[in-house]
């Protein structure tokens, strides 16, 4: 049994060692990682970085353009935009990362079982996924926020739930391929239980695409949080979020166009960073794609 499974395990180890190497040496991946790390530090040390309390109003200084005191200017209530943007990093990363953890925690086990066992379970899951995918994900999230009310926890649940079909589909298709490989048949012939095969042999071999999709989905989830907050269904003012800051900016776009620009740049940069990481990891972990694209990082 050891012989039958040693090869895929070592291949898996090699793949992940290589993945970490690419994160360290690939230019795009390194830049992506660095930006993500910076955002994490900004979120963590926001009270030390922000010069003002993000909800503190200075009515006499409303809609000030960027200056030495207010680096990015102020909004219509005189709140410091730089401080609000710094604090806006927190909900973006919190919701973005946690929601994808939730969707992976739900989607991956379902996809593993569906891809390994097939049969009626797979058919029912496939049909439910079709139903979920027929809603635009933003609409699904909007509807669920209407049902559950808007809070940080609701946003994590709602956005996480809307990404479940992505992970179910991806895991199912990967598990389907892996479960037909010889080492799985060998394990089965040695009397390994289904649970053991799924946990020890199939899951480690489908983790690569899941990690790639996870990174790309965090980018999508950050965008979704901002979109919901932009529509007034996410983080509620006066708490800052990049989405509601852009929304505030739309209201004063004629007088103070800069209000909407800076939070949008932060949003775009964070999404770009996670996409860069995901893209590089995909190049590394998907040899077929690499071969077809003919590019070696």
């Amino acid at each position, binding site marked *: 049994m050891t012989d039958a499974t040693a090869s895929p395990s070592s291949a898996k180890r090699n793949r992940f060692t290589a993945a970490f190497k690419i994160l360290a040496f690939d230019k795009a991946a390194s830049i992506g990682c660095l930006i993500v790390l910076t955002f994490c530090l900004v979120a963590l040390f926001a009270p030390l970085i922000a010069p003002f309390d993000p909800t503190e109003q200075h009515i006499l200084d409303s809609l000030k353009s960027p200056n030495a005191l207010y680096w990015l200017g102020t909004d219509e209530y005189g709140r410091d935009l730089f401080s609000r943007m710094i604090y806006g990093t927190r909900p973006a990363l919190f919701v973005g990362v946690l929601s994808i953890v939730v969707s992976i925690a739900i989607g991956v086990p379902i996809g593993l079982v569906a891809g390994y066992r097939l049969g009626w379970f797979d058919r029912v899951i496939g*049909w439910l996924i*079709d*139903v979920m*995918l*027929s*809603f*635009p*994900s*933003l*609409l699904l999230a*909007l*509807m669920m926020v*209407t*049902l559950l009310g808007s809070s940080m926890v609701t946003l994590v649940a709602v956005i996480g739930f809307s990404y479940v079909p992505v992970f179910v589909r991806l895991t199912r298709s990967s598990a389907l391929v892996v479960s037909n490989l010889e080492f799985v048949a060998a394990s089965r012939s040695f009397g390994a239980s289904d649970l053991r095969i799924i946990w020890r042999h199939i899951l480690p071999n489908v983790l690569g695409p899941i990690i790639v999709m996870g990174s790309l989905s965090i*980018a999508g989830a950050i*965008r979704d949080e*901002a*979109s919901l907050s*932009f*529509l*007034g*269904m996410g983080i509620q003012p006066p708490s800052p979020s990049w989405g509601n800051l*852009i929304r505030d*900016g*739309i209201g004063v*776009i*004629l007088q103070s*166009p800069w209000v*909407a*620009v800076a939070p*949008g740049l932060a*949003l*775009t940069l964070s*999404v*770009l960073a996670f*996409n*860069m990481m995901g*893209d590089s990891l995909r190049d590394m972990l998907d040899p077929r*794609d690499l071969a*077809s*694209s*003919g*590019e070696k990082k």
Partner: protein
Amino acid sequence: MHSYVIKRLLSAILVMWAVATLVFFAMRLIPADPAQVVLGDYASQELIEAFRHKMGLDLPILQQYRSFLVGVLQGDFGRSMVTGRPVAEQIFTLFPYTLSLALASLLIGSAIGIPLGVITAIRRNTIVDSLGRLFALAGFSFPAFYLAVILLIVFSVNLKWFPVVHSVSQEASLLEHLHKLVLPALSLGLIQASFIARLTRSAMLETLSQDYVRTAHAKGLPRRVVFYKHALRNVLIPVVTAMGLYTGQILGGAVLTETVFSRPGLGKLLVGAISQRDYTLIQSGVLMFAFVVLSVNLLVDLSYALFDPRVKYD
């Protein structure tokens, strides 16, 4: 072919029924009483009872469900709880605005994305490829509503080429309609272009490594003919599939774009309905979106044979 079409149609109908059921019961799960929400905190009990009776909310839930399904089948989506206007009338009045936005953005996306994907694949590992990939990555990362804001600031606030508010009446001329479609369609279309370019590049690279392309080169066909006649046709299948799958995203993007530009459309209608808790409008609007997504996916499935004669539906 016929049996495949029937099977796909039945499957789509089943999914539509599931969506309708899900949306109907989800709306009934909301803890707040819709009548109370619509009439406000100070409405008398008699008024609330009268409203519930008028909207059929006092009927048993299964009877409401049956009426809803029968209504949908007959094209009657009920009346808006807030305005009292027929929901179908509101939806069908605004649908052309969203449809034109989605189609225009798809047109822009394809017009930029497909050639860009082809060129970056043909000129792989050159500066053109790097720039094209940079554009694709940037577009992939730009939230559509933020791009809309930037376009608004540049072209409406600074250059004043377009109005800030893009509301357009039905009586407006075609030229006015088109003028007010440019920025919203660009903001959605540029994002689509990046998706399509990435996909086209990847599909083109895979196709270019196929034996038949090598054979075409070997027999001396001009590069243009090999790339655009032999390779591109096979590239279109995954691209069209992805464009179909992006319908949901385009519609989701339309919700945001219509809000930024204050442009009439289904998305803006639905966001308004959600903020006003107009349940009849929400359930019908969501159903309409699902119907469009399913229809496009069905059409995409059936269009494969057009692009690839090898595809058989047996």
